[in-house]
């Protein structure tokens, strides 16, 4: 039996009275990689923010590890710490690369901090830049440090918002390998937002298509790509969608 990590029910988020996310039903399973695809502005990043409990929904519930949360019941710090996000833009602290990766570990007083930070930096190929100021990194380097900072925490759930958007093909493959390894070896549950259909295909066990805040289709890989049920999904996958 597959365990469910997240159950989203009747979940909505509004900004200034405009509904930007409206999900009736979505389950996320333990140890899976779920890809979220969809046009720009369809609410992908907003969904990740709700999953990380960074924003609270205006309606509906998120059940996480069997506990029900909603706008009037937010998870404790300890629960929140099981989830972390790699943001679309690398938002690094004005400190060294090392201190950035060390940051979340220090907050938690994690054991073996040094070793975990070093290992994470090594994994993304940024160990040599450990003592460089993080704000002086290039876009792609920043993105890799941002990923290292998240995986060092060994979260139960890792949310990735366009993790390879600024990277060259070599580094894209490297990051994708890290994601696959984490999922295979440590059963980290992952939600990956990507614009890249091929990346979704390479990484995910299931794919969800989001459009104007609504879930149009959720299907397993490769059925999602090969036999989409909804005409809009088919158009999006084929690159024919106009938006």
């Amino acid at each position, binding site marked *: 039996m597959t365990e469910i990590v997240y159950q989203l029910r009747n979940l909505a988020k509004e900004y200034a009275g405009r509904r930007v996310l409206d999900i009736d039903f979505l389950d996320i399973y333990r140890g899976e990689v779920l890809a979220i695809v969809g046009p720009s502005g369809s609410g992908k990043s907003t969904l990740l923010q709700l999953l990380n409990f960074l924003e609270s929904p205006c309606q509906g519930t998120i059940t996480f590890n069997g506990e029900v949360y909603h706008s009037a019941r937010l998870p404790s710090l300890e629960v929140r710490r099981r989830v972390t*996000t790699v943001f679309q833009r690398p938002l690094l*602290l004005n400190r060294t690369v090392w201190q950035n990766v060390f940051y979340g570990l220090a907050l938690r007083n994690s054991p073996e901090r040094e070793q975990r930070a070093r290992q994470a930096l090594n994994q993304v190929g940024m160990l040599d830049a450990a003592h460089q100021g993080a704000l002086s990194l290039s876009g792609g380097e920043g993105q890799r440090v941002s990923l290292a900072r998240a995986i060092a925490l060994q979260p139960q759930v890792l949310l990735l918002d366009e993790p390879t958007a600024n990277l060259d093909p070599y580094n894209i493959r490297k990051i994708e390998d890290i994601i696959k390894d984490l999922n295979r070896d440590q059963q980290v549950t992952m939600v990956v937002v990507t614009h890249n259909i091929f990346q979704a295909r390479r990484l995910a066990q299931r794919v969800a298509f989001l459009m104007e805040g609504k879930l149009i289709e959720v299907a397993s890989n490769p059925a999602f790509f090969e036999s989409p049920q909804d005409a809009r999904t088919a158009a999006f996958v084929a690159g024919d969608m106009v938006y």
Partner: protein
Amino acid sequence: MITDFSEIITLSLRVSGIALFFSTLLGLPIGALIGLYRFPGRKLVVALLYTGMGFPPVVIGLLVYLLLSRSGPLGSLGLPWLPELFTPGAMIIAQTIISFPMVAGFTMAAILAIDPQLRQQIRSLGASEWQIAMTLLSEVRLGVIVSIVAGFGSIISEVGAVMLVGGNIAGRTRVMTTAIVLETRKGNFDLALALGAVLLGLTFLANLIMLRLQGKVLD
């Protein structure tokens, strides 16, 4: 002569130093609170702060004067811990009131300039509300240092308020600025110029020290 000279400088530094300590103690948390959190009445506090930053120091001197004078509301109460007029304590009060809006205002501005998403990222890394606040403050450490320098600049070179509440009493409340005014009026341009040079040098030195500090914090 020389002892007068160094006495004046020492008193200036002591008064402004203590005032700066209090205005940082007061201004930093206020600036941080307004910068970090939304709460009812926040707009009003911001408006008051901006007013405070642009408030003519001499008027603050006047208000402190009225407040502390024996016939004033506080003077007549005879509170023992309140300094009397024409003492360094009175000058410290005036300078604290002049400079804390600077410290608070610049700290607030520095925090508001932070990318709002950075806060989300910090939260996402597992920071508690308190840890988020401390991390954001450390992100704007340069702005905080600058706010303190600005506060120092606003009081070390101020004349009107210290003249009013201090009274420019030789050996007791005579600071550099009030001494310069007096010596110039008396035609003692040498002494006035010398004090002016020290004042200039001090502000320069303060900025230099702060720059050094900034470098250290960054490493």
